[in-house]
């Protein structure tokens, strides 16, 4: 029953969007009525999504999708998240978020009616494309041909609270760029005033903030669930999400130039199209099964071809309109040796080069396999040695960019900055000399601290300190950059200064980690509802009264016959101590301990960046 409701409302929603799409040419109607239709179709799409979710919650195995991906003894949260833990459901979620964005956009004020209508028509067009994709190749409402009482279960590594919310947030980022895309295309068609740039800015900030959150959740999950002790692996799927993120960052920054009355409209339009294209391209790569990763569900060539077609239509259409309706020449840029405009231009160029570098690394294996029938993989070494050096000048520049002037070459208080930089360099050199020298460590620490320090100096010397909302809005760019600086320190320390210790232990053994004694207390096995767990219990720092307990182990999921590793992590503000329980051999357990310094800084930095993203949305 719920399957039928879901399917019909989906088809009906697509029908309405088709009608709206035609309305541009055939049936013309008023704005009020138009918006009403858009909202109605959004609600229908939502209804369709929630009926699938309902089928999951009540374990309705007459639905083939539920049967394939759920199990009645799963905890409720994983029944809900199971809705998007599979290809079909996640595509429906994609469509659902697309219509939520249309829904909210239909309420936007301060923009011209025709412009809003055109934007929503382009959204309707996207809705039709993805809707048809779902109906014809990935229908989640198929009826199960056999009568069953039990389902096949959700992939155990997806049974995790962090991962339950990761897809919706990430999708909100990806799909949010659809609005930016539609706004830009509508802007090209209408070519009126520049009011739409402010609207685009708001939506691109929202999308970027969601994307940041989604990526961070994904890498946090990888950090504690995959049990490799790292949080970023340059996996193709990670690269796919990083590309629209960097391009989106470039977009947000170039939209800032609008304030300087030097709109480089052409560039902004290009980036808007690029961001959404990269999002769709990412969807294509993951959903077609071209890339193998935890994200690829069953591969199916017809799906791949269909979504490749969508990618081609959307991107081709976008860039074709861009080619034909090229924006009129805007004012020449006021480029000086060092002013805000030149800093922003350099930043944009660097980000685009970084994006293209990642793109090349990601599609290179596909090209090579087509041409030479050889399997190669492009991994960490390529990206680390290309992307990071490209970004370094940008990082250097961002420390002072927000206080540069639009019009002149002058930097206020430049002496203070030079002095601060010299002192900081000396300190970092001393640190490297006495503790642990590593080129990347040196560069990373210097950059991270420099960004933070310069931003703090800028805040204190350029503005009057007040505690009110307006003040926080004014210093927001600096705050965002401080977040980046903190994240850089975390990234540098946790990757360069990571320490690895290996032990072979019996229960009851004591061993030394970082100067503290750790007791390997015991091994415990328990039966949980949907898995069996094996846990090694460790007592950290037993010489103190408040020793801390750490549990590391594995879970065995009988339904899908899979073992997942569960790392035990002791979080401290300046380091994570990361325990991995290996296999038992000759009555001894293999235990790996990783000391990851300052990992928490990465998450802190990300949270600060997201906070500034949200503040910036409200700032005009």
């Amino acid at each position, binding site marked *: 029953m719920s399957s039928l409701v879901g399917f019909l409302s989906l088809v009906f929603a697509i029908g309405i969007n088709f009608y709206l799409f035609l309305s541009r040419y055939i049936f013309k109607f008023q704005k009020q009525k138009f918006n009403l239709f858009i909202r109605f179709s959004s609600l229908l799409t939502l209804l369709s999504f929630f009926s699938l979710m309902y089928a999951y919650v009540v374990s309705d195995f007459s639905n083939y999708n539920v049967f394939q991906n759920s199990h009645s003894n799963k905890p409720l949260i994983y029944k809900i998240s199971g809705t998007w833990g599979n290809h079909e459901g996640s595509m429906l979620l994609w469509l659902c978020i697309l219509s939520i964005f249309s829904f909210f956009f239909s309420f936007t004020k301060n923009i011209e009616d025709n412009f809003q209508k055109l934007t929503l028509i382009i959204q309707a067009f996207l809705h039709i494309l993805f809707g048809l994709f779902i109906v014809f190749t990935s229908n989640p409402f198929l009826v199960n041909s056999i009568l069953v009482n039990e389902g096949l279960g959700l992939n155990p590594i997806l049974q995790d609270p962090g991962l339950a919310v990761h897809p919706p947030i990430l999708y909100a980022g990806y799909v949010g760029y659809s609005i930016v895309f539609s706004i830009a295309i509508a802007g090209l068609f209408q070519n009126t005033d520049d009011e739409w740039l402010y609207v685009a800015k708001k939506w691109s900030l929202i999308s970027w903030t969601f994307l940041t959150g989604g990526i961070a959740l994904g890498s946090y999950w990888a950090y504690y669930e995959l049990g490799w002790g790292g949080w970023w692996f340059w996996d193709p799927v990670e690269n796919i999400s990083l590309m629209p993120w960097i391009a989106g960052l470039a977009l947000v920054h170039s939209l800032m130039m609008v304030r300087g009355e030097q709109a480089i409209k052409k560039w902004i339009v290009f980036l808007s199209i690029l961001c959404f294209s990269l999002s769709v391209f990412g969807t294509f790569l993951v959903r077609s099964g071209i890339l193998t990763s935890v994200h*690829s569900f069953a591969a199916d*060539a017809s799906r791949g071809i269909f979504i490749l077609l969508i990618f081609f239509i959307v*991107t081709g259409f976008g860039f074709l309109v861009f080619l034909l309706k090229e924006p009129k020449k805007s004012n020449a840029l006021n480029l000086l040796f060092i002013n805000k405009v030149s800093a922003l231009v350099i930043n944009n160029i660097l980000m685009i080069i970084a994006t293209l570098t990642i793109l090349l690394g990601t599609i290179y294996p596909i090209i090579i396999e087509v041409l030479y029938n050889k399997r190669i993989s492009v991994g960490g070494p390529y990206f680390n040695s290309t992307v990071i050096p490209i970004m370094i000048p940008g990082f250097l520049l961002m420390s002072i960019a927000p206080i540069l002037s639009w019009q002149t070459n002058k930097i206020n208080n430049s002496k203070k900055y030079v002095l601060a930089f010299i002192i900081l360099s000396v300190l970092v050199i001393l640190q490297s000399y006495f503790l642990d020298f590593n080129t990347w460590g040196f560069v990373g620490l210097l950059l991270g601290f420099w960004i933070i320090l310069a931003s703090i100096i800028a805040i204190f010397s350029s503005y009057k300190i007040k505690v009110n909302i307006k003040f926080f809005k004014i210093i927001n760019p600096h705050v965002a950059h401080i977040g980046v600086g903190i994240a850089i320190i975390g990234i540098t320390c946790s990757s360069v200064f990571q320490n690895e210790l290996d032990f072979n232990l019996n229960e009851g053994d004591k061993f030394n980690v970082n100067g503290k004694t750790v007791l390997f207390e015991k091994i415990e096995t328990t039966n949980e509802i949907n898995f069996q767990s094996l846990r090694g219990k460790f007592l950290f720092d037993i010489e103190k009264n408040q020793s801390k307990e750490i549990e590391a182990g594995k879970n065995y999921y009988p339904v899908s016959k899979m073992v997942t590793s569960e790392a035990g992590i002791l979080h401290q503000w300046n380091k994570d101590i990361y325990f991995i329980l290996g296999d038992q051999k000759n009555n001894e357990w293999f235990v790996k301990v990783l000391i990851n310094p300052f990992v928490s800084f990465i998450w802190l930095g990300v949270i600060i960046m997201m906070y500034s993203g949200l503040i910036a949305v409200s700032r005009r």
Partner: protein
Amino acid sequence: MNRIFILTPLIVLSIICIFSLVYLLSGKDPNKPPSALLNKDVPIFESSSLYNAKDIIKTKDIKNKKTLINFFASWCSPCKIEHPLFFEIRKKYPELYLLGFNHKDPTSDAKKYLKDDGNPYDFVGVDSDGLIALEFGVFGLPETYLINEDGKIIYKFMGPITMDILKNEIEPLL
């Protein structure tokens, strides 16, 4: 100049789409990488028979005859699915040498499996530690290799072979 700059995204888009399309249509599966051993000499191996430890088979024993090598185990359920097909191959191509490698299996389990489901192989070699599979680059069970008279691997299939695969891919090579 400016025109070329604006055309670039469309050109890049077309290139990406063409390559992706060719990739998709070629039926390549990223889970199944192309074998590095294809058209190479069969790896050197030595294995004793499941039924008689003194009975040894070596690489040179399969020279000068077409050989189908199949890696299987009693614990591998897809192997059970493809198992009956080997009897058909046996019947249709009596001159083809069927060599089975029993992979990481207790001897008793393997013997019971071949007793229950029948033994289509000319020789069942034991690969208890999986070293022979390692030499062949076995990815996951079952896997099947076709070796020609010159001792070169001319075909490899991962996963259970089916009637279609047998008809369309293996038989033309026999």
